[in-house]
């Protein structure tokens, strides 16, 4: 089998994966830096390479609404957005997960207005964190491509039936060209199959979707989503095993880099995990015992894996690329602190907000974070969030 390699940007890689996944419906609205995804899919349509329908809607609200309607027919559905677009979809995010539509959405993570910024941070996805979607973050372009294919497989399982977001960093990934190994069309098609959905809009077996629920049964609907999230957590590794058999690649819920014997760890999400890893590699050459945890699966949160990786560490830095205004800590730091507290584990922790609105996070920055961890006495780590690199 010849492995086909192409030089693709993150957006293009996503579009390629969508084309290979036998998607029936794409409904999307253009927003920087997601535009290349819809442009590329439109090109596939124009050249007869994409068999599904592309619906160029008039807003992101309608994009996701169109996807929900389409998905309820049993069709395989994809959309993509960023930033303001995701914010405009917010209402329908909950409808999509509540109606158990296995939609896959690429989110090119971009700052939220105001001030207006087209650049990267995770404020968009974190603002919709509790919407009931499975949330996956990727580190590089290959991962973006792979995770789209993986996500359809996970979403469409009978015991899951939840929508998935695949998060890739604005520009750092969306516009960055990398060499991508493609999986053959037929292999992808066979891997995904066409799972038949029991509940769908079909006159031969009519159901009503989106009913009004009263206080005595609404809670039970919501609880079923909790169960589905737990199932998604359990199914994750199995789906990854299947995916690694067709691709030779496996990412895990957490990306662990030199973590086993490390004294100090950085927890980080998205493309800057690669930057932190590079810093760790250089520091390892100097004999410094540092490692990086890339949180790839954010919802459902990999609690067990986080606990395992924390075992025996001297100090950790948790890096958030979003702010939860007025909260004790930003989102990832809150999750990790909560996991530790609930399990009687107390690894000294510092937490940082970094890289807001596309502010660069360099190898030297990652090194600085490691050095702060190592130089300070862990019992004296500041409890408050450090806004790393902000000009005060």
């Amino acid at each position, binding site marked *: 089998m010849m492995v086909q390699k192409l030089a693709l940007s993150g957006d293009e890689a996503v579009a390629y994966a969508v084309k290979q996944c*036998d998607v*029936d*419906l794409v*409904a999307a609205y253009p927003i920087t830096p997601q535009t290349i995804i819809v442009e590329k899919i439109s090109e596939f349509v124009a050249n007869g390479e994409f*068999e*599904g*329908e592309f*619906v*160029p*809607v*008039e*807003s992101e*609200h*309608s*994009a996701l*609404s*169109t*996807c*929900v*309607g*389409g*998905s*309820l*027919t*049993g*069709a395989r*559905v994809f959309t993509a957005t960023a930033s303001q677009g995701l914010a405009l979809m917010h*209402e*329908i995010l909950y*409808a999509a997960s509540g*109606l158990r539509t296995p939609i896959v959405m690429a989110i090119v993570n971009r700052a939220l207005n105001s001030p207006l910024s087209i650049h990267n941070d995770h404020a968009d996805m974190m603002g919709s964190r509790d919407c009931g979607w499975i949330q996956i973050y990727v580190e590089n372009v290959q991962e973006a491509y792979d995770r789209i294919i993986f996500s359809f497989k996970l979403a469409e399982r009978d015991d899951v039936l939840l929508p998935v977001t695949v998060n890739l960093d604005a520009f750092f990934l969306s516009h960055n060209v990398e060499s991508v190994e493609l999986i053959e069309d037929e292999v992808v098609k066979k891997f995904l199959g*066409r799972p038949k959905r029991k509940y769908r*809009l*079909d*006159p031969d077996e*009519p*159901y*009503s*979707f*989106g*009913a*009004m*629920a*009263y206080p005595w*049964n609404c809670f039970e*609907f919501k609880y079923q989503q909790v169960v589905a999230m737990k199932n998604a957590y359990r199914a994750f590794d199995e789906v990854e095993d299947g995916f690694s058999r067709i691709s030779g690649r496996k990412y895990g819920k957490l990306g662990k880099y030199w973590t086993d014997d490390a004294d100090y760890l950085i927890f980080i999400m998205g493309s800057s995990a690669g930057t932190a890893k590079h810093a760790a590699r250089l520091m390892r050459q100097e004999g410094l015992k540092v490692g990086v945890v890339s949180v790839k699966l954010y919802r459902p949160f990999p609690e067990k894996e986080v606990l395992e990786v924390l075992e025996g560490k001297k100090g950790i830095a948790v890096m958030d690329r979003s702010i939860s205004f007025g909260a004790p800590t930003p989102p990832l730091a809150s999750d990790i602190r909560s996991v530790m507290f609930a399990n009687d584990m107390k690894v000294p922790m510092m937490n940082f907000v970094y890289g807001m609105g596309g502010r660069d996070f360099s190898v030297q920055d990652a090194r600085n974070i490691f050095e702060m961890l190592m130089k300070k006495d862990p019992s004296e780590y500041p409890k408050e969030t450090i806004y790393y690199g902000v000009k005060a």
Partner: protein
Amino acid sequence: MSYKPIRTLFELPTEENLAPGHRMCSGCGVTVGVRQILLAAPKDVIVVTATGCLEVSTVAYPYTAWRCPWVHVAFENAAAVASGIEAALKALERKGYGKRYPVIAFGGDGGTYDIGIQALSGALERGHRLLYVCYDNEAYMNTGIQRSGGTPYGTWTTTTPFGKVRPGKTEVKKNLMGIVVAHGIPYAATASISHWKDLMNKVRKALSYDGPSFIHLLTPCNRGWRFDPAQTTRIAKLAVETRYFPLYEVENGVYRITVPVPRPKPIEEFIKVQGRLKHLLRPEYADALAMFKKQVEDHYSYIEMMTKATSSK
């Protein structure tokens, strides 16, 4: 386009897609209209409903009044949801995975004139094969009679009460049909629940087109319009007979009045039977009444003018 017109009640199917036992108010005009529409449509149809009276009252878990596949997602997006269903079925049929069915979306005046106008405009512009029905009871009735863009001038609602300085709503009813027709869709029509044959044949005609179609249906609401629930159909009929709500269709740009009203009844007959409007008959609101009358006359003349102007097309 070819379609099979209905001439007598005996031609109606006996199987209905909207089952009895729903929780719509007695005397509700919407239910009468939806029932007529579904009787005119094929049995195998997919229905989308915007948030509103029709939605909350027909599907309260674990019960449903719908015998056909039905979906509600949110308030402002019925047209977008319907677009997705239509497009997905088209792809599934092309790929050999499924079959296409007619799609009908229902939205109230709030869900259509106001919050849903963008999604509707998008769906009409993109040319999806679907029928969108705006059931117009001229205010947000489900939330308790607040004014909408479809509420007529001078009307009392809970957010446009009449008082010492205001006659009720001070803005005019938006020309929804004008907006819809401007999209250049193949078929758009107004209808009233009092004229069942006119409505049902418009539904058949609408569904015969391979593109978007639209029906603007007047559905009197006894709770919001303040009248005896037994009078719903009579009031719907008066709306037509007084020229308040002209019944016409626009087929490929050609206007045609389907129920001409050569000798209209005085508009006061329509006004005086409704608690929301009858204050206009008081002397202090004489100016507002004159304005109301003028709008009704102007609108009817406009439809007549458009009929003449497009007759040679």
